[in-house]
């Protein structure tokens, strides 16, 4: 079995609002990413996938707060570590992040190279500016970015170029885990392709050891990742390998989600597009039972009473429902 790069056990984090209310946006999430693998996280907007991305970094600032659970990166448990220690030795170096809005992710009044200097100097005390420059140039060239970008201000770069620059900066310190939070959602199709190509290249060249890719665009997930995790209202509802998750979902929500998106792949051409009626629950007051119960076609009275645990199938596939796999499949066949 390959090395486990990132293991998360029962991680729970919450937002504290201006009015002092707790919102549990990530609720007992566990996951595992092995070396050389890419994990996808899917779900509607507001389901907690972006918060999960922030929570995985192990470095919290208001309004997000850590509650419980463990994060283990390459065998090193970072959950109990002092925040400043996490900042110096973990962030960027062990685990790195590509933000959702890369358009504004760079300080507009700082040249790219100066920002790179700031980042590297934070982690390596005795490095000269010249070494930093050489290293950055080499990395940029490897990734197919012109070295002139280094001497420019973010405003001078196009959207796609900015996004690729952000990715390059994120992997400067060769992190073991890279978390990409919708890195392509604001880009045009050509730039999207470039970004996806770049993420794959990062994995192939070994600049990063594993990838967590978050998006609501399922075709992208299917193309990039090995496994897919579907989240709903702060919880994992299904986890499977990419093919099964997209073509053969078990959980009613995953089923609905896959059905609501056009996937330009063969077998799906004739699948009808269906939207899931209703809205996700308010996480300030989560329901006692299954969180999807209000919107589920197959809901039973007991669904609303007790919380539902994840069921594990053979081969490591998991889903969160009171029904067995067979019962669900039968229900889907009957429509």
């Amino acid at each position, binding site marked *: 079995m390959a090395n486990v790069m990132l293991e998360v056990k029962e991680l729970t984090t919450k937002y504290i609002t201006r009015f002092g209310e707790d919102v549990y946006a990530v609720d007992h999430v566990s996951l595992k990413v092995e070396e050389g693998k890419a994990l996808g996280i899917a779900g509607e907007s507001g389901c907690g996938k972006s918060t999960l991305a922030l929570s995985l970094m192990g470095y919290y600032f208001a309004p997000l707060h850590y509650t419980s659970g463990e994060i283990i990166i390459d065998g090193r448990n970072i959950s109990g570590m002092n925040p400043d220690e996490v900042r110096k030795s973990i962030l960027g170096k062990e685990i790195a992040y590509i933000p959702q809005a890369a358009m504004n992710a760079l300080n507009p009044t700082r040249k790219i190279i100066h*920002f790179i200097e700031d980042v590297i100097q*934070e982690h390596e005390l005795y490095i000269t500016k010249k070494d930093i420059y050489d290293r950055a140039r080499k990395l940029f060239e490897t990734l197919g970015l012109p070295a002139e970008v280094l001497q420019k201000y973010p405003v001078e770069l196009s959207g796609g170029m900015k996004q690729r620059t952000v990715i390059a900066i994120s992997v400067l310190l060769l992190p073991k885990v890279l978390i990409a939070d919708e890195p392509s959602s604001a880009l045009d199709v050509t730039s999207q392709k470039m970004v996806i190509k770049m993420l794959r290249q990062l994995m192939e060249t070994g600049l990063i050891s594993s990838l967590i890719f978050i998006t609501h665009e399922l075709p992208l997930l299917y193309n990039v990742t090995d496994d897919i995790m579907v989240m709903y209202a702060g919880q994992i509802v299904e986890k499977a390998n990419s093919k099964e998750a997209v073509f053969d979902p078990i959980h009613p929500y995953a089923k609905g989600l896959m059905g609501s998106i056009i996937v330009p792949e063969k077998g799906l051409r004739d699948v009808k597009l269906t939207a899931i009626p209703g809205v996700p629950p308010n996480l300030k007051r989560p329901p006692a039972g299954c969180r999807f119960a209000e919107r589920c076609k197959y809901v039973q009275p007991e669904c609303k009473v007790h919380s539902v645990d994840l069921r594990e199938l053979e081969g490591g596939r998991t889903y969160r429902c009171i029904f067995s796999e067979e019962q669900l499949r039968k229900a889907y066949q009957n429509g």
Partner: protein
Amino acid sequence: MKGYRKYFLNKLAWFLVTLVCAFLLNFILPRLMPGDPVAAIVARMAQGMSNSSGVQAIYEQYTELFGTNKPMLEQFFLYTRNVARGDFGFSFSQYPRTVADVLSASIWWTVCLQFPAIIVGWLIGNSLGALAAYLKGGFDKVIMPVSIFISNFPPFGMAVLLMVIFGVNLKWFPTSGGYGFDLIPSFTWSFMWSVIVHYQLPFWSIVLIAIGGQAIGMRSMSIYELNADYVKYARFLGIKDRKIVGYVFRNAMLPQITGLALSVGTMVGGALVAEIIFSYPGLGSTILTAVRGQDYPLVSATTLIITLMVLSANFIIEILYGIIDPRIKAAQAD
């Protein structure tokens, strides 16, 4: 550098255009008004209200300089020529001094009082606003209402309050004038000291007013920047908070510089009135004497000088801004 040159030329052109327009307004506005002061004064002079040779001299000088009986266009050329020469004629109220002479005495008092005060007020105000945004909590809860109240306080009100508290009651500083009335301007220690002591109250009243407005603006700019995406990204790359705060305040400060350029006119207006309260020998007091003495050439020349000062300040700020903010060059290069 190409981008910057384009920006510079653009601003220079704009400066010249506004200057010309201000000059035109200065010429036209008084002549458009129903109760034309030029005609009124000349009429009064012509009636021979006084036979003194001084009035006669002014009258002759005036008709020659401004050619009030000539057609508008000719008047305009005369006016332009005289202004270009720096010749504004005699002052009505302070004859036989010329307008240029009166102004050259008072202009430096105003420049030396207002520009340092506005800059100091800007710096302190921005620091307080940034601190309020960063520290939040109690500091913010105290600084903000105070700033809002101060920035709504009329500038002359601040001047009066400072004068009553520190000049009249505590007697720490003199209440009026630019230097002791028993002294003659010279480069002696006693005169210098007197100038410094007289400088304090007008200076701080202008500073305080500037602080209020700037602190409010800087606070909301900083809050906006603190929530910007680049802050989150920089944090997740492990950059320490102190450095990120540095980014944030630099970026929040930049719009404040343009804000200063836009508000410098209003600030100077308020400060002129504050000068009057302290009988400071600057342009504010000059306007007051000119208005009381119905001294048309002096009012016209003073307003022109003030406009020129404000436009120049504006121009300088914009030019500096172009150097400081890299986005300007980039935007112009496209």
